[in-house]
Protein backbone atom coordinates (compact mmCIF):
# COMPACT_ATOMS: atom_id res chain seq x y z
CA UNK A 1 0.00 0.00 0.00
CA UNK A 2 2.66 2.49 1.14
CA UNK A 3 4.82 1.41 -1.69
CA UNK A 4 2.11 1.72 -4.34
CA UNK A 5 1.37 5.18 -3.02
CA UNK A 6 5.04 6.03 -3.35
CA UNK A 7 5.29 4.77 -6.92
CA UNK A 8 1.89 6.08 -7.99
CA UNK A 9 2.83 9.45 -6.61
CA UNK A 10 6.27 9.43 -8.18
CA UNK A 11 5.00 8.75 -11.69
CA UNK A 12 2.86 11.81 -12.07
CA UNK A 13 4.05 14.46 -14.53
CA UNK A 14 4.72 17.40 -12.18
CA UNK A 15 7.06 15.38 -10.00
CA UNK A 16 8.74 13.80 -13.01
CA UNK A 17 9.38 17.28 -14.38
CA UNK A 18 10.99 18.29 -11.11
CA UNK A 19 13.47 15.47 -11.63
CA UNK A 20 13.92 16.37 -15.27
CA UNK A 21 15.01 19.79 -13.99
CA UNK A 22 17.50 18.24 -11.59
CA UNK A 23 18.80 16.03 -14.37
CA UNK A 24 19.23 18.97 -16.74
CA UNK A 25 21.71 20.57 -14.35
CA UNK A 26 23.48 17.30 -13.61
CA UNK A 27 24.13 16.57 -17.30
CA UNK A 28 25.12 20.25 -17.79
CA UNK A 29 22.29 20.90 -20.28
CA UNK A 30 21.80 24.60 -21.00
CA UNK A 31 18.05 24.17 -20.51
CA UNK A 32 16.65 27.07 -18.50
CA UNK A 33 13.35 28.87 -17.96
CA UNK A 34 14.24 32.49 -18.68
CA UNK A 35 13.48 35.33 -16.26
CA UNK A 36 10.72 36.44 -15.55
CA UNK A 37 8.78 33.32 -16.57
CA UNK A 38 9.24 31.48 -13.25
CA UNK A 39 7.91 34.59 -11.49
CA UNK A 40 4.76 34.70 -13.60
CA UNK A 41 4.26 30.93 -13.29
CA UNK A 42 4.28 31.23 -9.51
CA UNK A 43 1.91 34.21 -9.67
CA UNK A 44 -0.39 32.05 -11.79
CA UNK A 45 -0.26 29.19 -9.29
CA UNK A 46 -1.03 31.48 -6.35
CA UNK A 47 -3.84 33.12 -8.31
CA UNK A 48 -5.38 29.79 -9.30
CA UNK A 49 -5.05 28.06 -5.95
CA UNK A 50 -6.33 31.11 -4.10
CA UNK A 51 -9.31 31.54 -6.39
CA UNK A 52 -10.21 27.83 -6.24
CA UNK A 53 -10.01 27.98 -2.46
CA UNK A 54 -12.34 30.97 -2.37
CA UNK A 55 -14.84 29.23 -4.60
CA UNK A 56 -14.59 26.19 -2.33
CA UNK A 57 -15.30 28.29 0.75
CA UNK A 58 -18.21 30.07 -0.94
CA UNK A 59 -19.67 26.66 -1.73
CA UNK A 60 -19.04 25.20 1.72
CA UNK A 61 -19.87 28.10 3.98
CA UNK A 62 -17.97 28.75 7.21
CA UNK A 63 -18.92 26.26 9.95
CA UNK A 64 -17.26 26.09 13.37
CA UNK A 65 -15.24 23.03 12.23
CA UNK A 66 -13.59 25.26 9.68
CA UNK A 67 -12.90 28.02 12.17
CA UNK A 68 -11.24 25.46 14.42
CA UNK A 69 -9.06 24.22 11.52
CA UNK A 70 -7.98 27.74 10.61
CA UNK A 71 -7.17 28.50 14.26
CA UNK A 72 -5.10 25.32 14.51
CA UNK A 73 -3.24 26.24 11.33
CA UNK A 74 -2.36 29.67 12.66
CA UNK A 75 -1.29 28.17 15.98
CA UNK A 76 1.02 25.63 14.34
CA UNK A 77 2.52 28.32 12.10
CA UNK A 78 3.46 30.29 15.23
CA UNK A 79 4.57 27.28 17.28
CA UNK A 80 6.87 25.60 14.76
CA UNK A 81 9.26 28.57 14.35
CA UNK A 82 9.59 28.72 18.15
CA UNK A 83 10.90 25.21 18.65
CA UNK A 84 12.74 25.29 15.33
CA UNK A 85 14.58 28.41 16.50
CA UNK A 86 15.82 26.87 19.71
CA UNK A 87 16.95 23.71 17.93
CA UNK A 88 18.83 25.82 15.38
CA UNK A 89 20.43 28.14 17.93
CA UNK A 90 22.65 25.24 19.10
CA UNK A 91 24.68 25.66 15.91
CA UNK A 92 23.72 28.93 14.23
CA UNK A 93 23.76 32.69 14.69
CA UNK A 94 20.55 34.35 15.87
CA UNK A 95 19.93 35.76 12.39
CA UNK A 96 20.34 32.44 10.58
CA UNK A 97 18.38 30.51 13.20
CA UNK A 98 15.49 32.99 13.01
CA UNK A 99 15.41 33.01 9.20
CA UNK A 100 15.43 29.21 8.94
CA UNK A 101 12.79 28.98 11.67
CA UNK A 102 10.56 31.32 9.64
CA UNK A 103 11.18 29.22 6.53
CA UNK A 104 9.95 26.05 8.23
CA UNK A 105 7.15 27.69 10.17
CA UNK A 106 5.66 29.01 6.95
CA UNK A 107 4.45 26.86 4.08
CA UNK A 108 5.14 25.93 0.46
CA UNK A 109 2.19 26.50 -1.87
CA UNK A 110 3.57 24.09 -4.48
CA UNK A 111 3.91 21.32 -1.92
CA UNK A 112 0.29 21.98 -0.92
CA UNK A 113 -0.78 21.92 -4.56
CA UNK A 114 1.04 18.65 -5.21
CA UNK A 115 -0.53 17.16 -2.10
CA UNK A 116 -4.00 18.29 -3.17
CA UNK A 117 -3.48 16.78 -6.63
CA UNK A 118 -2.32 13.59 -4.87
CA UNK A 119 -5.60 13.44 -2.92
CA UNK A 120 -7.67 14.11 -6.03
CA UNK A 121 -5.91 11.23 -7.76
CA UNK A 122 -6.91 8.96 -4.86
CA UNK A 123 -10.44 10.45 -4.78
CA UNK A 124 -10.04 11.56 -1.17
CA UNK A 125 -12.15 14.71 -0.60
CA UNK A 126 -10.83 17.82 1.18
CA UNK A 127 -12.20 21.26 2.04
CA UNK A 128 -11.61 24.36 -0.07
CA UNK A 129 -11.00 26.23 3.19
CA UNK A 130 -7.69 24.36 3.48
CA UNK A 131 -6.38 26.92 1.03
CA UNK A 132 -7.41 29.60 3.51
CA UNK A 133 -5.52 27.62 6.14
CA UNK A 134 -2.49 27.68 3.86
CA UNK A 135 -2.79 31.42 3.27
CA UNK A 136 -3.09 32.03 7.02
CA UNK A 137 0.05 30.01 7.68
CA UNK A 138 2.30 32.13 5.46
CA UNK A 139 2.70 35.14 7.74
CA UNK A 140 2.76 34.21 11.45
CA UNK A 141 6.10 32.42 11.14
CA UNK A 142 7.62 35.58 9.69
CA UNK A 143 6.36 37.69 12.61
CA UNK A 144 7.49 35.19 15.24
CA UNK A 145 10.93 34.79 13.69
CA UNK A 146 11.54 38.51 13.39
CA UNK A 147 10.50 39.04 17.00
CA UNK A 148 12.81 36.23 18.17
CA UNK A 149 15.59 37.80 16.13
CA UNK A 150 14.87 41.18 17.61
CA UNK A 151 14.82 39.93 21.19
CA UNK A 152 17.93 37.78 20.93
CA UNK A 153 20.09 39.71 18.51
CA UNK A 154 22.86 41.98 19.77
CA UNK A 155 23.35 43.38 16.27
CA UNK A 156 22.80 47.13 16.05
CA UNK A 157 20.73 46.85 12.89
CA UNK A 158 18.24 44.60 14.65
CA UNK A 159 17.39 47.72 16.61
CA UNK A 160 16.11 49.97 13.83
CA UNK A 161 12.85 48.12 13.54
CA UNK A 162 9.39 49.18 12.41
CA UNK A 163 6.20 47.25 13.18
CA UNK A 164 4.77 48.79 10.02
CA UNK A 165 7.43 47.38 7.77
CA UNK A 166 7.29 44.01 9.49
CA UNK A 167 3.52 43.86 9.06
CA UNK A 168 3.85 44.85 5.42
CA UNK A 169 6.55 42.27 4.71
CA UNK A 170 4.56 39.58 6.51
CA UNK A 171 1.04 40.24 5.23
CA UNK A 172 1.39 42.31 2.04
CA UNK A 173 4.34 40.45 0.68
CA UNK A 174 3.53 39.94 -3.02
CA UNK A 175 2.76 36.23 -2.87
CA UNK A 176 0.81 36.38 0.40
CA UNK A 177 -1.19 39.32 -0.91
CA UNK A 178 -2.02 37.65 -4.22
CA UNK A 179 -3.20 34.37 -2.72
CA UNK A 180 -5.27 36.18 -0.07
CA UNK A 181 -6.73 38.52 -2.67
CA UNK A 182 -7.57 35.72 -5.09
CA UNK A 183 -9.17 33.80 -2.23
CA UNK A 184 -11.44 36.72 -1.37
CA UNK A 185 -12.26 37.28 -5.04
CA UNK A 186 -13.07 33.60 -5.34
CA UNK A 187 -15.51 33.95 -2.45
CA UNK A 188 -17.09 37.12 -3.84
CA UNK A 189 -17.43 36.20 -7.48
CA UNK A 190 -19.40 33.01 -6.86
CA UNK A 191 -20.78 30.48 -9.32
CA UNK A 192 -20.71 32.50 -12.55
CA UNK A 193 -17.21 33.81 -11.93
CA UNK A 194 -15.99 30.35 -11.04
CA UNK A 195 -17.41 28.91 -14.26
CA UNK A 196 -15.84 31.65 -16.38
CA UNK A 197 -12.41 31.04 -14.85
CA UNK A 198 -12.54 27.25 -14.73
CA UNK A 199 -10.54 26.63 -17.94
CA UNK A 200 -7.83 29.01 -16.78
CA UNK A 201 -7.62 28.07 -13.11
CA UNK A 202 -8.41 24.34 -13.31
CA UNK A 203 -7.85 22.89 -16.77
CA UNK A 204 -4.40 24.17 -17.66
CA UNK A 205 -3.27 24.13 -14.03
CA UNK A 206 -1.34 20.86 -14.06
CA UNK A 207 0.51 21.83 -17.20
CA UNK A 208 1.69 25.11 -15.74
CA UNK A 209 2.64 23.28 -12.56
CA UNK A 210 4.85 20.94 -14.62
CA UNK A 211 6.72 23.91 -16.06
CA UNK A 212 7.12 25.45 -12.65
CA UNK A 213 8.45 22.24 -11.16
CA UNK A 214 10.84 21.86 -14.08
CA UNK A 215 12.29 25.22 -13.09
CA UNK A 216 12.27 24.33 -9.38
CA UNK A 217 14.29 21.24 -10.25
CA UNK A 218 16.82 23.34 -12.14
CA UNK A 219 17.14 25.91 -9.36
CA UNK A 220 17.27 23.27 -6.63
CA UNK A 221 20.10 21.47 -8.44
CA UNK A 222 22.00 24.75 -8.93
CA UNK A 223 21.69 25.50 -5.22
CA UNK A 224 22.73 22.00 -4.14
CA UNK A 225 26.32 23.20 -3.96
CA UNK A 226 25.41 25.66 -1.20
CA UNK A 227 24.45 22.70 0.98
CA UNK A 228 28.12 21.98 1.58
CA UNK A 229 28.12 25.28 3.47
CA UNK A 230 24.95 24.17 5.26
CA UNK A 231 26.66 20.99 6.46
CA UNK A 232 25.30 17.78 7.96
CA UNK A 233 23.38 19.45 10.78
CA UNK A 234 21.20 21.58 8.51
CA UNK A 235 20.83 18.85 5.91
CA UNK A 236 19.52 16.50 8.58
CA UNK A 237 17.36 19.31 9.94
CA UNK A 238 15.74 19.66 6.52
CA UNK A 239 14.49 16.08 6.72
CA UNK A 240 13.87 15.69 10.44
CA UNK A 241 11.95 18.88 11.17
CA UNK A 242 9.20 18.02 8.65
CA UNK A 243 8.87 14.65 10.40
CA UNK A 244 8.68 16.32 13.80
CA UNK A 245 6.11 18.82 12.52
CA UNK A 246 4.07 15.98 11.04
CA UNK A 247 4.32 14.09 14.34
CA UNK A 248 2.80 17.12 16.07
CA UNK A 249 0.26 17.90 13.35
CA UNK A 250 -1.31 14.46 12.89
CA UNK A 251 -2.44 13.89 16.50
CA UNK A 252 -3.62 17.50 16.66
CA UNK A 253 -5.65 17.05 13.48
CA UNK A 254 -7.11 13.85 14.93
CA UNK A 255 -8.17 15.40 18.23
CA UNK A 256 -9.71 18.35 16.35
CA UNK A 257 -11.70 15.85 14.31
CA UNK A 258 -10.44 16.94 10.92
CA UNK A 259 -11.52 14.85 7.99
CA UNK A 260 -9.20 12.35 6.41
CA UNK A 261 -8.20 14.64 3.53
CA UNK A 262 -8.07 17.84 5.55
CA UNK A 263 -5.78 16.18 8.10
CA UNK A 264 -3.38 15.20 5.32
CA UNK A 265 -3.24 18.73 3.91
CA UNK A 266 -2.88 20.19 7.40
CA UNK A 267 0.07 17.85 7.99
CA UNK A 268 1.76 18.68 4.70
CA UNK A 269 1.38 22.38 5.43
CA UNK A 270 3.11 22.00 8.78
CA UNK A 271 5.81 19.80 7.24
CA UNK A 272 6.51 22.05 4.27
CA UNK A 273 8.94 24.96 4.16
CA UNK A 274 8.64 28.24 2.28
CA UNK A 275 11.05 29.21 -0.51
CA UNK A 276 9.34 32.26 -1.98
CA UNK A 277 7.35 34.33 0.52
CA UNK A 278 9.65 33.86 3.51
CA UNK A 279 13.02 34.27 1.75
CA UNK A 280 11.71 37.50 0.25
CA UNK A 281 10.56 38.70 3.67
CA UNK A 282 13.82 37.63 5.33
CA UNK A 283 15.93 39.62 2.86
CA UNK A 284 14.05 42.65 4.09
CA UNK A 285 13.61 41.91 7.80
CA UNK A 286 16.73 39.87 8.64
CA UNK A 287 19.26 40.83 5.95
CA UNK A 288 22.09 39.48 8.12
CA UNK A 289 20.76 35.96 7.62
CA UNK A 290 22.45 34.03 4.85
CA UNK A 291 19.99 33.11 2.06
CA UNK A 292 22.31 30.43 0.72
CA UNK A 293 21.42 28.47 3.86
CA UNK A 294 17.64 28.72 4.05
CA UNK A 295 16.88 28.70 0.32
CA UNK A 296 18.66 25.44 -0.59
CA UNK A 297 17.43 23.77 2.57
CA UNK A 298 13.77 24.25 1.73
CA UNK A 299 14.17 23.95 -2.02
CA UNK A 300 16.71 21.16 -2.43
CA UNK A 301 16.03 19.05 0.67
CA UNK A 302 12.65 19.58 2.29
CA UNK A 303 10.60 20.08 -0.87
CA UNK A 304 11.75 16.90 -2.65
CA UNK A 305 11.65 14.94 0.61
CA UNK A 306 8.04 15.96 1.22
CA UNK A 307 6.69 15.30 -2.26
CA UNK A 308 8.45 11.96 -2.68
CA UNK A 309 8.77 10.28 0.71
CA UNK A 310 6.77 12.60 2.96
CA UNK A 311 3.39 12.61 1.23
CA UNK A 312 2.96 8.82 0.97
CA UNK A 313 4.31 8.40 4.49
CA UNK A 314 2.01 10.97 6.14
CA UNK A 315 -0.97 9.62 4.25
CA UNK A 316 -0.20 6.03 5.22
CA UNK A 317 -0.03 7.00 8.88
CA UNK A 318 -3.25 9.03 8.63
CA UNK A 319 -4.99 6.16 6.84
CA UNK A 320 -4.06 3.85 9.68
CA UNK A 321 -5.20 6.22 12.43
CA UNK A 322 -8.40 7.52 10.81
CA UNK A 323 -9.66 4.09 9.72
Amino acid at each position, binding site marked *: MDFNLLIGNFFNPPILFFFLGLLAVIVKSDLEIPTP*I*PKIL*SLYLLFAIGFKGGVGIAAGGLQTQIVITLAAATAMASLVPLYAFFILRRKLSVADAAAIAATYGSISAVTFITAAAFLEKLNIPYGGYMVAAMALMESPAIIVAVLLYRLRSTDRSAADFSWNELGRDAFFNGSVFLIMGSLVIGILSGEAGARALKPFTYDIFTGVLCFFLL*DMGIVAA*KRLGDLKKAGVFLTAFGVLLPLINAAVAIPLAYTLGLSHGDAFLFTILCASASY*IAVPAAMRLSIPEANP*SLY*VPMSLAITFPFNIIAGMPLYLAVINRIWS
Partner: protein
Amino acid sequence: MIPVKKIEIIIDKHELPNVLKLLDAAGVSGYTVFEDATGKGDRGLRGGDDLTGVFANSYVMSACPIEKLHLIVESLRPVLKQRGGVCLVSDAEWIIH
Protein backbone atom coordinates in the same frame (compact mmCIF):
# COMPACT_ATOMS: atom_id res chain seq x y z
CA MET B 1 30.18 69.67 -21.70
CA ILE B 2 30.46 69.95 -17.92
CA PRO B 3 32.55 67.54 -15.85
CA VAL B 4 30.52 65.27 -13.54
CA LYS B 5 31.11 62.26 -11.34
CA LYS B 6 29.50 59.03 -12.42
CA ILE B 7 28.42 56.85 -9.53
CA GLU B 8 27.67 53.18 -10.18
CA ILE B 9 26.03 51.08 -7.49
CA ILE B 10 25.39 47.34 -7.56
CA ILE B 11 23.21 46.24 -4.73
CA ASP B 12 20.78 43.58 -3.56
CA LYS B 13 17.55 44.17 -5.49
CA HIS B 14 15.63 44.33 -2.20
CA GLU B 15 17.71 47.36 -1.24
CA LEU B 16 16.94 49.23 -4.47
CA PRO B 17 14.00 51.32 -3.21
CA ASN B 18 16.08 52.20 -0.18
CA VAL B 19 19.09 53.26 -2.27
CA LEU B 20 16.95 55.35 -4.61
CA LYS B 21 15.44 57.11 -1.60
CA LEU B 22 18.94 57.93 -0.38
CA LEU B 23 19.93 59.28 -3.80
CA ASP B 24 16.84 61.47 -3.94
CA ALA B 25 17.52 62.66 -0.41
CA ALA B 26 21.10 63.52 -1.40
CA GLY B 27 19.56 65.63 -4.16
CA VAL B 28 20.78 63.92 -7.33
CA SER B 29 19.22 65.32 -10.51
CA GLY B 30 18.37 61.82 -11.69
CA TYR B 31 19.47 58.23 -12.03
CA THR B 32 19.24 55.25 -14.37
CA VAL B 33 18.42 51.76 -13.11
CA PHE B 34 18.80 48.26 -14.47
CA GLU B 35 16.61 46.31 -12.10
CA ASP B 36 18.04 42.87 -12.76
CA ALA B 37 21.73 42.09 -12.86
CA THR B 38 23.50 38.91 -11.98
CA GLY B 39 27.03 38.73 -10.67
CA LYS B 40 29.51 37.41 -8.19
CA GLY B 41 31.18 38.95 -5.18
CA ASP B 42 32.06 38.41 -1.54
CA ARG B 43 28.61 37.05 -0.89
CA GLY B 44 28.97 34.48 -3.63
CA LEU B 45 27.14 33.92 -6.87
CA ARG B 46 24.05 36.07 -7.38
CA GLY B 47 21.04 35.88 -9.63
CA GLY B 48 20.22 33.24 -12.20
CA ASP B 49 17.39 32.30 -9.89
CA ASP B 50 14.18 34.08 -10.67
CA LEU B 51 12.17 31.55 -8.70
CA THR B 52 12.95 32.76 -5.20
CA GLY B 53 14.02 36.23 -6.36
CA VAL B 54 16.34 36.27 -3.36
CA PHE B 55 19.61 36.45 -5.23
CA ALA B 56 18.90 39.31 -7.62
CA ASN B 57 21.10 42.40 -7.93
CA SER B 58 20.15 45.79 -9.25
CA TYR B 59 22.42 48.33 -10.93
CA VAL B 60 22.04 52.08 -10.41
CA MET B 61 23.96 54.78 -12.24
CA SER B 62 23.82 58.45 -11.36
CA ALA B 63 25.80 61.34 -12.77
CA CYS B 64 26.21 64.18 -10.28
CA PRO B 65 28.10 67.44 -9.93
CA ILE B 66 31.57 66.87 -8.49
CA GLU B 67 30.84 68.89 -5.37
CA LYS B 68 27.85 66.68 -4.52
CA LEU B 69 29.85 63.45 -4.71
CA HIS B 70 31.03 63.39 -1.11
CA LEU B 71 27.56 63.86 0.34
CA ILE B 72 26.07 61.13 -1.82
CA VAL B 73 28.82 58.61 -1.14
CA GLU B 74 28.59 59.19 2.59
CA SER B 75 24.84 58.67 2.57
CA LEU B 76 25.28 55.37 0.72
CA ARG B 77 28.17 53.98 2.76
CA PRO B 78 26.15 52.61 5.69
CA VAL B 79 23.86 50.62 3.39
CA LEU B 80 26.82 49.18 1.51
CA LYS B 81 28.54 48.34 4.77
CA GLN B 82 25.50 46.56 6.16
CA ARG B 83 24.04 44.96 3.04
CA GLY B 84 27.08 44.44 0.83
CA GLY B 85 27.24 45.60 -2.73
CA VAL B 86 29.63 47.72 -4.71
CA CYS B 87 29.96 51.42 -5.45
CA LEU B 88 32.26 52.76 -8.15
CA VAL B 89 32.98 56.40 -8.95
CA SER B 90 34.48 57.68 -12.19
CA ASP B 91 34.90 60.89 -14.18
CA ALA B 92 32.65 61.79 -17.07
CA GLU B 93 31.43 64.79 -19.00
CA TRP B 94 27.78 65.70 -19.31
CA ILE B 95 26.58 66.97 -22.68
CA ILE B 96 24.38 69.94 -21.87
CA HIS B 97 21.46 70.43 -24.20
